[in-house]
């Protein structure tokens, strides 16, 4: 007690302004200390990896590191005729050095992305080239080993892959490529799939969002208006699937929807169909399973918004003579918009990144962009393309979130996506 009194005595000698500052700083430290663990966690597990991914989408140093002399010899090559003897000799030197250090395949892999067959050209040349060619004979030596070295396109591919940064992967993710003259053109029809896959991803996400809204809105309304005892029971029904493993729910749909599954067998037994319907391994199955998995994410924000709407508004509207539909459309619905917005955005963005469900219940034409990102990340180890696809998806998602933020500016939103 006395100590505290003394303390106040001491404090009075310090100017008020400085004391305020000190208090302010103490408050800041406390606040920072509280969020520090989360901040660190996000920095290491989220911001760092995302930055790394964006970097990989443009990073192009493999060819430079493996074929340094050839890259510098080609730096001032005009690309019109074949490069001169010097470039051939430089490449031969690089190939011999790369073969000795076992790095030739790294360049071969990168060049093969741009020109199919380059892997063979480079590894064969490395295998056949026993020693450095005599001065002045590098050109004919290489051309004799593989006629591809007489092609301008072969050299252009090396020049275009010289790095250190490239737009190659990002262009490929948008079905574009550079032709031999360096102009951006559409990719070959056989290779041009990613725009269609992105469109498919957005279409599936959008349909799932719409289905979730149609199914979720009445349920949320019921939850918000029933007496607590009954609404709690209903809430458990909503949350139960939420707590069940995604894999279990997806496999349950397989059991239900397959051609000898519960649904088809029941319909057959009732005499409605005589041939089983195809309900799975197609777009229908993907939409059904994803809607089921994501429904709680729609219901919960809607419910919390509706819970806050006073029933007095609707009663007031009715007493002023509004028919039920008009009252709903003009009084109730506008007040639920923040919940609809938050729920839709949540479901849509979660759906964009779905992988397991479409992989298990979709056909070959229902694979979303995440399937390709996973394929190039783990199976073929084409990290440049995987990162570029991820970057495009990230950009599209951020744009959507921004648009949404603009739309709901100034409204009370439960989703926390304001400004």
């Amino acid at each position, binding site marked *: 007690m006395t100590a505290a009194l003394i303390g106040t005595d001491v404090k009075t000698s310090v100017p008020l302004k400085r004391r305020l500052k000190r208090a302010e700083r103490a408050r*800041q*430290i406390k606040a*920072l200390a509280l969020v*520090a663990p989360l*901040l*660190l966690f996000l*920095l*290491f597990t989220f911001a760092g990896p995302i930055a790394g991914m964006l970097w990989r989408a443009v990073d192009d140093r493999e060819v430079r590191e493996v074929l340094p002399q050839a890259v510098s010899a080609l730096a001032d090559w005009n690309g019109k005729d074949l490069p001169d003897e010097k470039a051939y000799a430089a490449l031969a030197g690089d190939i011999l050095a790369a073969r000795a250090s*076992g*790095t*030739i*395949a*790294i360049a071969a*892999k990168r060049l*093969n*992305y741009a020109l*199919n*067959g380059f*892997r*063979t050209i480079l590894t064969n040349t490395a295998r056949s080239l026993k020693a450095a060619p005599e001065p002045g004979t590098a050109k004919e030596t290489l051309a004799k080993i593989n006629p591809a070295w007489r092609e301008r396109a072969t050299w252009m591919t090396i020049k275009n892959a010289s790095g250190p940064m490239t737009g190659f992967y990002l262009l490929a993710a948008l079905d574009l490529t550079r032709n031999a003259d360096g102009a951006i053109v559409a990719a070959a*029809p*056989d*290779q*041009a*799939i990613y725009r*269609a*896959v992105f469109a*498919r991803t957005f279409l599936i996400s959008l349909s799932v969002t719409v289905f979730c809204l149609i199914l979720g809105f009445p349920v949320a309304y019921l939850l918000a208006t029933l007496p607590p005892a009954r609404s709690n029971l209903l809430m458990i029904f909503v949350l139960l699937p939420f707590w069940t493993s995604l894999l279990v729910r997806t496999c349950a749909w397989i059991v239900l929807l*397959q*051609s*000898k*599954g519960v649904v088809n067998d029941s319909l057959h037994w009732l005499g409605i169909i005589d041939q089983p319907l195809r309900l799975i*391994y197609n777009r229908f199955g993907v939409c059904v399973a994803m809607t089921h998995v994501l429904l709680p994410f729609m219901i919960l924000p809607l419910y919390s918004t509706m819970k806050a709407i006073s029933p007095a508004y609707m009663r007031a509207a009715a007493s002023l003579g509004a028919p039920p539909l008009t009252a709903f459309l003009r009084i109730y619905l506008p007040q639920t918009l923040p919940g609809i917005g938050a729920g839709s955005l949540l479901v849509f963005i979660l759906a964009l990144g779905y992988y397991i469900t479409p*992989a*298990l219940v979709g*056909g*070959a*034409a229902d*694979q979303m962009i995440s399937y*390709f990102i996973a*394929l*190039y*990340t*783990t*199976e*073929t*180890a*084409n*990290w440049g*393309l995987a990162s570029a696809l991820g970057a495009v998806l990230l950009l599209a998602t951020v744009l959507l979130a921004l648009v949404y933020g603009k739309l709901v500016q100034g409204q009370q939103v439960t989703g926390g996506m304001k400004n």
Partner: protein
Amino acid sequence: MTMLKRNIGKLGKIGKIVLGFATVLGASAALATVAQARDLTVVSWGGAYQDAQKKVYFEPFKKAAGIAMNDESWDGGVGVLRAKVQGGAATWDVVQVESDELAVGCEEGLFEKLDYSKIGGEAAYIPPSVNQCGVGAILYDFVLGYDKDKLKDAPNGWADFFDTRKIPGKRALRQGPKTTLEIALMADGVAPKDVYKVLATDEGVERAFKKLDTIKADIVWWKAGAQPPQLLASGEVAMTSVYNGRIDTANKNEKKNFGIVWDGALFTLDSWVILKGSPNKEAAYKFLDFVGKAENQSKLSENIAYGTSNKDAAGRLQPAVLKDLPTAPDNIKNAVEINVAFWLENIDRLTERFNKWAAK
């Protein structure tokens, strides 16, 4: 960088302290994992296969060598190994990899070059299983699988697989171009030994897709090795491409009556590799030596229907066991080895092509 500096500037003094602290924390954590000695860790494919390996390899090895080891499982993908090794804190020592992972990982320097003198010498193993970065573990097949309870007459091979009039019902194939295009060509009358010669040409690729067009609406695409037996069991498909070991396991453990058509099978090898920079290299060699011995390998084939890499392993088997193995003379005579070099060169291009075709 300037951007980053500017943002750090905005953090204020406290923010900088937090950031500095975080860096130190992260660095020390990374150092700690590197410096930590750990037991030998062996990684395989999980499921019934790894259970069999536990029984005949891992447990006996622990007893015989007196070396502590633990085993984990993975789903493959050279990207996973690259991330492990380049991350500088690989927690795995010995990994079982597929042939394309072996080739790419070897090129990228992810694996130790093997000293065969420590594992019984190259002459002890069948030629396709000897590689500078890895040693063969098992040989297995993609075969045509069907349910004998539902199909009274065995299909004749891939040609029947594409004949929906003769055998109605859906078919399942592995999603993607690999194995699918080879199967389509064999169904179209290409001899197994010529498959890759034909597939290397643009006309050959066209021909394969044209053949696939004929049953496009009847194909279910599977992604994981566990799916084909389920698709057969549920009656979803009449026939499927499938790993031969999965059929055998379903018959043994779940009392199924599945059949295999060995004609036109696609075989491939899995290999053991030692990850680059493994701190347990000596123990890893002891392990590879142990699992390379014929007497140990023959026990594996008795438990699960895979062929093995030691030349003398097959000779120790009962004929009843041997007849169900991919390495049995009758079963391998019209089989074709999946061509790793071809797929390394063409996987990206043909994956795009395959998906273009699928979306049509």
